[in-house]
């Protein structure tokens, strides 16, 4: 309880300070760590991919920004109550949330990946005919496999994410479809060194649009600024430069 209170107090102080400054754009993010996107380092500063992207966006918009940590379940109310001006905390764009707030264009969408043993040659999903594919039960990934790969492949459904990785290592499945980010630690492990990312899978209908900046409905100017800034850092290479430090795959997901 004490911790929550002190976070709340810090939030109020931070919000109060930035209201006084007023010219600043206050970027809200979850007060708990979400690595590698954002986390608080030992000296109290926020670091991570999303922090660097956010700072780059602010530089592109020529605005001064301040990061405001807020408990996740109160982050949309904090936005509508004008305690913050934008949510930049890995918030997925959903129809439900769109009823309350606006979203900028997506700035990332962790792609799904198909991983397979290094020796296997897979150029496209057509090369998977006759192969065994492991997915986790009732995930967006199993929906993808059902949509595109149910013909001519043997789909094995696992209860647990780690189990299909185990069976990929054992050779019982030829490929696994899962989230790139979630797969990264496995691919770096000794067992996962058998395998590599063969395909990056994108389908907005199955996997969702991605993550955008949450902005108040009435702040259409700010929304336009964010969209322009996202386009700018995508175009001038800032986005890729930052992303390369954190991910060995295309975090933006998709080509648009």
């Amino acid at each position, binding site marked *: 309880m004490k911790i929550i209170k002190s976070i709340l107090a810090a939030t109020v102080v931070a919000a109060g300070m930035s209201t006084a400054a007023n010219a600043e754009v206050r970027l809200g993010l979850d007060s708990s760590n979400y690595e590698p996107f954002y986390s608080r380092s030992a000296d109290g500063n926020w670091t991570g991919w999303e922090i660097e992207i956010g700072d780059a966006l602010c530089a592109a918009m020529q605005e001064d920004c301040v990061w405001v940590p807020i408990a996740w379940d109160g982050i949309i109310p904090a936005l509508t109550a004008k305690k913050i001006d934008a949510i930049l905390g890995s918030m997925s764009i959903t129809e439900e949330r769109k009823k309350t707030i606006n979203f900028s264009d997506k700035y990332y969408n962790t792609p799904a990946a198909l991983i397979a043993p290094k020796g296997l040659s897979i150029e496209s999903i057509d090369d998977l005919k006759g192969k065994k594919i492991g997915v986790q039960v009732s995930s967006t990934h199993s929906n993808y496999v059902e949509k595109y790969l149910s013909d001519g492949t043997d789909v094995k*459904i696992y*209860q647990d994410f780690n189990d299909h990785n185990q069976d990929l290592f054992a050779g019982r499945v030829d490929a696994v479809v899962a989230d790139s980010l979630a797969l990264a630690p496995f691919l770096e492990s000794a067992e996962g060194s058998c395998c590599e990312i063969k395909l990056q899978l994108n389908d907005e209908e199955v996997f969702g649009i991605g993550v955008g900046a949450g902005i108040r409905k009435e702040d259409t100017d700010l929304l336009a600024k964010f969209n322009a800034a996202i386009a700018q850092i995508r175009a001038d290479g800032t986005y890729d430069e930052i992303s390369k430090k954190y991910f060995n795959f295309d975090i933006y997901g998709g080509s648009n």
Partner: protein
Amino acid sequence: MVWDWLPEYLPKFVDGLWVTLQLFSLSIFFGFLLAIPIGLVQVTGPKWLGHIARGYCTLFRGTPLLIQLWLLYYGLGSVFPYYPGLRESFIWPILVEAFPYAVVAFSLSVAAYEGHVMKGAFQSVPKGELQAGRAFGMSNFTLLRRVWLPRALQNVLPTLAGEAVLTLKSVPLASTITIFGVYGVGSIVRQETYRVYEPLLFVGFIYICLTGLIVVLFRWLENRVPSESQL
């Protein structure tokens, strides 16, 4: 109660039922075949074989079936990559499938439980009947086939029915190694429709029907074997 998902998933449930029934009947079949010698050697000897059989029963009845299943499936699986030749061998297509592992694990478990039952069953047949059989000049095998085994089974059929029902209800464990029986399909429905009660109740309903079927089947078997009073 909302049941509108049922028509959509019914074909999957039919597939699942087939998987459940296959796993159940194969395990009971192989398990029982193993149970007979396991029970018998504990009564007839040789002593060292009896000790092994007893140790086997203790080990398999004393550890969770889920752990046996995982040790067999994931345990063996984790060893495969260290034998590269295995992937080219004729046995690989079988090693890749999950179903054979489930049948082996379930059969070994059934053998342990029913082996223990059969030991008691063999012991309970009066010595006089066996001696009578020998007096007729029956060989050991004929004696077992004609007298000892039928008489032993007669005594324990109700117990075996109970064991069979327990085995049936262990089948959902196989969903952890990608074998989606009735329970597995139920869990897919649960996670796709966000309904909790209806799919679980439906799965429960299917299981109670199957249990009823097993009970009826064993009762029919019991009636075919003449009891003491009918002799």
